């Protein structure tokens, strides 16, 4: 018989014993052990473990012995011990309550058997009763669960949105250290903020502050470019940026390395762009022609960035040097021209604000000889990545005023409120119903239920309902998330695998379940059965008060939201109906992305006119929907020396006016027939007002010394934001032209005209894909934000009304139930159904009226603040309030009437029978 080589029972006086006591096992593990192990088993287990520990110190050394001891101690966390431990605790409690001894005697340790943690039979019974109650009162259950589910679903959806917004740009490893270099300038006391900076700024920052900036990257705007692979043309969004960009943005490279942009003739493409251009073939080393001018070899493929990142729309990165080599004029630009973007990554220890303060005058230093520009008081600053998305707004003093973060707060607030309202509704309904169950409680008690069992029952009921609601909420969220993504322009999904998400959901279920269950569980279970069963049990009139307050609060929120929705809608309509000063219909714009456009424009122009579908074409420096450039340096008769001249400037070709259809107030349009028109201005009314000219036509304006004559004044053209005043703008013929505007003949259908135009482009300029925009669509896109807010507000208002109606419905049914006998008596005495209906509905109408009185000033105050953001804004009209007031009254009556009419129709014999 193999006997262990060492004697497992050591000598009590042996040296091992002394060593063991000298070197105790880890104390925390011992404590865990004694805490988890059932008391009656502790001694032997602890003894065994300590003996083994002493053995292992001898055999394997103290380190391993301690390791083993900890491992063994942790192994106590197993079902058997935990069950016995809990059973022990439960037994102690039971002994405390139980007067008679248990009948069954466990095999060992009669006083500590190991029954299951909780009595499964009882739990099964609780659930059965809960389920039967749900089924019996189907209507109630449906309202209860659906109300809570909708509230939860709204909260989950908004929670996901908030999460998405707050985690914006967190994809980048250097999130904390990436900044964009931007500047403030001051014109006539108003500060503007822009991300366009002068060309020399990048090198200056790099050279002067090497200890602060790890990298400074000059870049061109993210915009669409034409890419050609072989004979295929693609239009892709990309950015020309210095070679360290992939490192700064910590791009996840699928092919190639992040150093791929160091060669001037290289290009890195996103995985999806690679698929579009090259299909399944390996893109590495392939040659791409950018804008039909620059050849570039693919040196890398990076993983597409997620939608909630600043650079997610960038489908390719190409070297800055490549762009400069094709646009030599860039290098010639000084400190006065703001046109490029500069991104930077700071060293780890650098404080953004301090560095901003350090570099703020860097531009002014280089403008020493230019009085006009110095007066604009340019201040360079760093805008950190953490603020790009949520804090992008700046006020007229150049302070960072927030931006999207305000909507994050607003929607979080709405979500919290909807959830709270749903929660309270849920509690209300379940308590209203539980009063009907007072008799059940009485009988249960009389039969022998102890209070703990009743508490258990009511809690398991409320948890069952909350869990069901959660199930519905999750499926509801999955269902409408697609729609919501579309609305909010997001790519969100439920965070199934995020522990934080489940923690929140679990916490919410726990809190709601406990709160909703607490009233019946704790209050009802305390009833004395004799009183309840005798029928003297009465709930005080106070019981209805919290419900009334709740209905008022709910309707206040709903009415506020509805008024808000209507006003947002009104504002959008107001701005949409604003006269824009030109005609957008049938107006196309094509960017001149390649040299061929410049050399072959005349041919194109002629061909298009000959086609018979085009009314006119013209070139311009920027789109009709954007004003890209503004300049100073204008002098005019009567200009006061303190006035800073800053005009929007737009170079156009002579046909521009005819093409876009601008309207003349005075004077004439540019004409090819007058050579002198190259020194002429057409100005808008805003410019005339700005210069305070009485008779503008014929006046001479000097731009940087050169005289120009005003030949015409046009009505203000809305080129920038439709909510802002039109910027004083001058139009002239000298300068670069980048866009072709094409006006279709109004008699020709767009669908007929487009193929013809495309054919002409293909024929004249075969190397570039025909890529066009409709001006009216571009213009409509300016309302996207406002429309989005309006739609979201409408959705939430609808849900809020739904939940409020549920609350109202619950209250109505509660009241109807309570007044059944009163109604019976009234009917017997001769009341008509209509009088009863009026009697019961009156109270609710009053409640909603109070809510309306509170909501009106609240909504007015909030919306007035929102509208102040817009210079071109609508007036809040009184009819909105009246309409919403009547509307909510109608909804109230509809909701309540079901219950009140039902109550009024009950045969009094039924309701009075039991007396």
């Amino acid at each position: 018989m193999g006997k262990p080589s060492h004697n497992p029972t050591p000598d009590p006086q042996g040296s091992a014993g002394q060593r063991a006591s000298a070197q105790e096992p880890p104390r925390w593990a011992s404590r865990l052990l004694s805490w988890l192990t059932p008391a009656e088993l502790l001694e032997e287990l602890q003894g065994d473990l300590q003996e083994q520990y002493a053995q292992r110190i001898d055999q394997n050394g103290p380190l391993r012995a301690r390791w083993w001891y900890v491992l063994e101690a942790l192994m106590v966390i197993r079902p058997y011990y935990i069950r016995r431990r809990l059973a022990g605790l439960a037994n102690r409690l039971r002994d405390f309550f139980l007067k008679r001894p248990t009948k069954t005697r466990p095999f060992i340790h009669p006083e500590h058997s190991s029954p299951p943690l909780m009595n499964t039979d009882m739990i099964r019974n609780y659930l059965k009763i809960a389920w039967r109650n749900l089924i019996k009162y189907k209507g109630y259950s449906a309202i209860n669960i659906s109300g809570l589910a909708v509230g939860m679903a709204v909260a989950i959806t908004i929670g996901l949105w908030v999460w998405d917004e707050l985690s914006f740009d967190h994809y980048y490893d250097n999130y904390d250290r990436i900044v964009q270099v931007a500047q403030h300038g001051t014109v006539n006391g108003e500060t503007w903020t822009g991300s366009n900076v002068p060309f020399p700024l990048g090198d200056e920052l790099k050279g002067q502050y090497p200890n602060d900036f790890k990298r400074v990257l000059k870049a061109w705007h993210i915009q669409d470019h034409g890419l050609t692979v072989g004979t295929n043309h693609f239009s892709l969004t990309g950015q020309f940026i210095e070679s360290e960009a992939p490192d700064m943005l910590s791009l996840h490279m699928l092919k190639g390395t992040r150093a791929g942009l160091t060669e001037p003739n290289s290009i890195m493409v996103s995985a999806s762009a690679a698929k579009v251009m090259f299909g399944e073939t390996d893109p590495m080393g392939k040659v791409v022609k950018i804008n039909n001018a620059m050849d570039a070899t693919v040196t890398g493929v990076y993983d597409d960035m997620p939608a909630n990142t600043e650079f997610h729309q960038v489908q390719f990165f190409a070297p800055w040097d490549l762009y400069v080599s094709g646009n030599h004029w860039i290098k010639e630009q000084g400190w006065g021209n703001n046109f490029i973007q500069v991104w930077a990554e700071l060293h780890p220890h650098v404080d953004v604000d301090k560095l901003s303060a350090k570099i703020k005058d860097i531009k002014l230093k280089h403008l020493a000889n230019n009085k006009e520009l110095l007066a604009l008081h340019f201040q360079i600053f760093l805008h950190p990545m953490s603020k790009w998305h949520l804090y992008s707004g700046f006020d007229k003093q150049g302070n960072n005023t927030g931006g999207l973060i305000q909507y994050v707060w607003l929607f979080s607030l709405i979500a919290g409120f909807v959830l709270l309202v749903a929660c309270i509704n849920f509690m209300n309904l379940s308590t209203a119903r539980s009063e009907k169950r007072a008799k059940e409680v009485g009988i249960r008690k009389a039969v022998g239920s102890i209070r703990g069992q009743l508490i258990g029952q009511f809690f398991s009921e409320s948890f069952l309902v909350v869990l069901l609601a959660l199930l519905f909420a999750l499926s509801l969220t999955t269902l409408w998330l697609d729609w919501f993504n579309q609305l909010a322009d997001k790519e969100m999904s439920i965070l199934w695998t995020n522990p934080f998400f489940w923690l929140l959901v679990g916490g919410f279920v726990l809190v709601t379940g406990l709160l909703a269950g607490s009233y019946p569980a704790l209050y009802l279970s305390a009833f004395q059965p004799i009183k309840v069963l005798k029928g003297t049990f009465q709930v005080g009139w106070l019981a209805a008060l919290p419900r009334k307050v709740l209905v008022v609060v709910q309707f206040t929120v709903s009415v506020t939201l509805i008024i808000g929705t209507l006003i947002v809608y009104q504002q959008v309509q107001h701005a949409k109906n604003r006269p824009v000063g030109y005609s957008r219909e049938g107006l196309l714009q094509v960017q001149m992305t390649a040299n061929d456009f410049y050399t072959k424009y005349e041919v194109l122009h002629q061909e298009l006119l000959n086609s018979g579908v085009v009314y006119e074409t013209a070139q311009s420096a920027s789109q009709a929907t954007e004003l890209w450039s503004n300049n100073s340096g204008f002098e005019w008769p009567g200009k006061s020396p303190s006035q800073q001249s800053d005009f929007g400037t737009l170079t156009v070709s002579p046909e521009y006016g005819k093409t876009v259809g601008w309207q003349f107030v005075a004077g004439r349009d540019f004409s090819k027939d007058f050579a002198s028109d190259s020194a002429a201005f057409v100005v808008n009314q805003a410019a005339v007002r700005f210069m305070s000219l009485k008779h503008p036509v014929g006046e001479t304006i000097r731009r940087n010394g050169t005289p120009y004559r005003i030949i015409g004044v046009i009505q203000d053209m809305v080129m920038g934001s439709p909510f802002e005043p039109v910027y004083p703008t001058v139009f002239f013929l000298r300068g670069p032209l980048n866009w072709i505007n094409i006006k279709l003949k109004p008699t020709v259908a767009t669908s007929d005209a487009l193929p013809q135009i495309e054919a002409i482009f293909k024929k004249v300029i075969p190397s570039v894909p025909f890529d066009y925009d409709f001006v009216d669509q571009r213009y409509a896109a300016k309302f996207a934000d406002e429309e989005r807010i309006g739609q979201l507000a409408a959705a939430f208002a609808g849900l809020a009304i739904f939940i409020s109606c549920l609350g109202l419905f619950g209250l109505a049914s509660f009241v109807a139930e309570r007044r059944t006998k009163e109604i019976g008596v009234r009917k017997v005495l001769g009341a008509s159904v209509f009088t009863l209906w009026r009697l019961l509905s009156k109270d609710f109408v009053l409640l909603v009226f109070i809510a309306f009185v509170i909501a009106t000033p609240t909504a007015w105050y909030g919306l007035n603040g929102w509208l102040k953001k817009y210079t071109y804004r609508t007036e809040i009209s009184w009819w909105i309030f009246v309409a919403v007031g009547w509307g909510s009254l109608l909804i109230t009556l509809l909701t309540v009437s079901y219950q009140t009419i039902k109550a009024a129709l009950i045969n009094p014999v039924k309701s009075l029978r039991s007396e």
Partner: protein
Amino acid sequence: MSRTYLGEFEELVLLAVAVLELQSAGAYGVSIADELKLRTQRTTSVTGVHVVLYRLEEKGLVGSELGGASQVRGGRRKRLFTLTAAGQQVLREMRQLRLGFWEALPTPFFS
């Protein structure tokens, strides 16, 4: 089948009890874990052995008493296990069962 069901580990522990209860050390957590390690070459945790012993006790296959406190155990007593008649019966049945299978096998299997 009215026979008590035993898992493999339970069976081994029961056998270890049978072997060790005859020796001076007696059958208790550490000695059983050591015996199992020696014979099966696999590390068994004392905690696990304890759980199995309690289960066997609940099934009535082993009995136990407390005794044998020592310095090395921090003055704590150990629970010494002994085989009950039922335990012996189960072990015998197990052996019979296995032997029956072995006898049913053809002889070449053993060569």
